[in-house]
């Protein structure tokens, strides 16, 4: 019988949650890497037992862990992330230029075709690739040539947090950076284009600048790779032309601020966001934890509340903390800064907590197992 494996990265370690396809009873395994921040864990689409984890600490820096048995055991692999050439500078909070400095890996994205190839999105923002299972990392430095001197850190740091590979075009990759925007390569990472036309951000002097936007997350359905969805700092956006231009689809959301955005596994026009109150509060409006679903690819949104706390809830849901499974009845999962991981096995109609008292959840990924 098929099942799901939910990979949860937290402020103090990693947890692996497993269930059969019914998704009613869950086994909680962990903590792995106890006491370390785990910004992200992800599995290979072609070898589900090959996992990668980003383990980091303010004291001891960055470690990359690899598992060949679905997270039962792990081995540390390469952790040398050296920027290509002279790193140069980027825009700093006070308007001056600041040297590029590696801090941590925010995102690990295994290749769609090769379990030994994996991408790493890092802070300060850059994209690295390993083709030997994480032992050695090379920067795809053409990305920083896309006006990197004008990128600047958001409150969470200048991080490359989203990596999406186009399943129909092996040369095309999308990334997103806070606060720089979205970027696309059509030549396997050698050169990159800013794809931010149509974004409007009141937080920067030129609100429609080519770069500088605080993009929080991107999502794509593999069957419609030219359609992208974006949760920006403010505004939910949609592109129908591979990011060449964007239009706002925030519609009737109670707040168009938020962090994650996800697409239903079987309905390419059904998308999910979690509206958050901002600036600075960063908790759900009115203390009600509500996932919003649009079945029209944006603009028209419905609140999903069954099983979620509807009073006195003041958690946040971070940008990498929502994912979907690919079972027949699509499952949606998200984790909170309060340590809860919620699951829906019916496309979001109803929810239940899988676990309730983990450390603050930084990321959630889901593997659908054969």
């Amino acid at each position, binding site marked *: 019988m098929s099942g799901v494996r939910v990979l949860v990265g937290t402020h103090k370690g990693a947890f692996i949650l497993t269930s059969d396809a019914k998704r009613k009873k869950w086994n909680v395994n962990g903590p792995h890497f*106890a*006491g*370390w921040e785990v910004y992200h864990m992800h599995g290979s689409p072609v070898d589900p037992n090959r996992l990668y984890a980003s383990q980091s*600490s*303010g*004291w*001891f*820096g*960055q*470690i990359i862990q690899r598992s060949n048995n679905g997270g039962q055991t792990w081995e*540390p692999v390469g*952790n*040398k992330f*050296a920027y290509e050439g002279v790193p140069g500078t980027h825009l700093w909070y006070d308007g001056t230029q600041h040297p590029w400095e590696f801090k941590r890996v925010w995102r690990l994205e295994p290749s769609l075709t090769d379990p030994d190839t994996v991408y790493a999105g890092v802070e300060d923002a850059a994209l690295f690739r390993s083709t030997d299972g994480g032992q050695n990392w090379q920067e795809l430095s053409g990305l920083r040539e896309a006006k990197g001197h004008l990128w600047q850190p958001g409150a969470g740091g200048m991080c490359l947090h989203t990596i999406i590979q186009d399943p129909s075009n092996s040369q095309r990759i999308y990334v997103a950076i806070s606060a720089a925007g979205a970027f696309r390569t059509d030549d396997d990472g050698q050169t990159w284009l800013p794809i931010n036309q149509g974004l409007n951000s009141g937080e920067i002097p030129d609100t429609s600048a080519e770069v500088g936007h605080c993009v929080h997350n991107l999502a794509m359905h593999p069957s419609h790779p030219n359609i992208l969805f974006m949760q920006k700092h403010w505004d939910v956006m949609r592109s129908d032309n591979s990011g060449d231009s964007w239009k706002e689809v925030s519609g009737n959301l109670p707040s168009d601020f938020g962090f994650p955005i996800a697409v239903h596994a079987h309905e390419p026009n059904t998308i999910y966001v979690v509206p958050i109150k901002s600036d600075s509060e960063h908790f759900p409006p009115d203390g009600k934890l509500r996932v919003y679903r649009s079945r029209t690819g944006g603009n028209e949104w419905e609140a999903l509340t069954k099983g979620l706390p509807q009073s006195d809830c003041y958690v946040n849901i971070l940008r990498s903390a929502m994912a979907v499974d690919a079972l027949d009845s699509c499952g949606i999962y998200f984790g909170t800064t309060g340590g809860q991981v919620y699951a829906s096995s019916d496309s979001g109609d109803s929810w239940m907590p899988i676990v309730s008292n983990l450390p603050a959840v930084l990321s959630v990924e889901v593997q659908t197992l054969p």
Partner: protein
Amino acid sequence: MIRVVIPYHLRTLAQVTSEVEIHVDGQATQGALLDALESKYPMLRGTIRDQATKERRPFIRFFACGEDLSLESPNSPLPDPIVKGVEPFRIVGAMAGG
């Protein structure tokens, strides 16, 4: 053999349970000791000092014989009691909450 005490999280990473013993070829300096430690436990590379510059990470301190050697040159000879294994060289994570 030089005895080295490493912080709890790095003991877990290196899969050791107590202090480790390190052999240093040639003059026993702080830098040579860290080179030998990282050679024996390669998973520690980058966790104590920067892999490229070899600079000590900001929240790491080096203590020996009741003294803080963190700001000593990597080329400084280690104290005799450390070289002879009488006292351990202590690698310590700075006190900081969270």
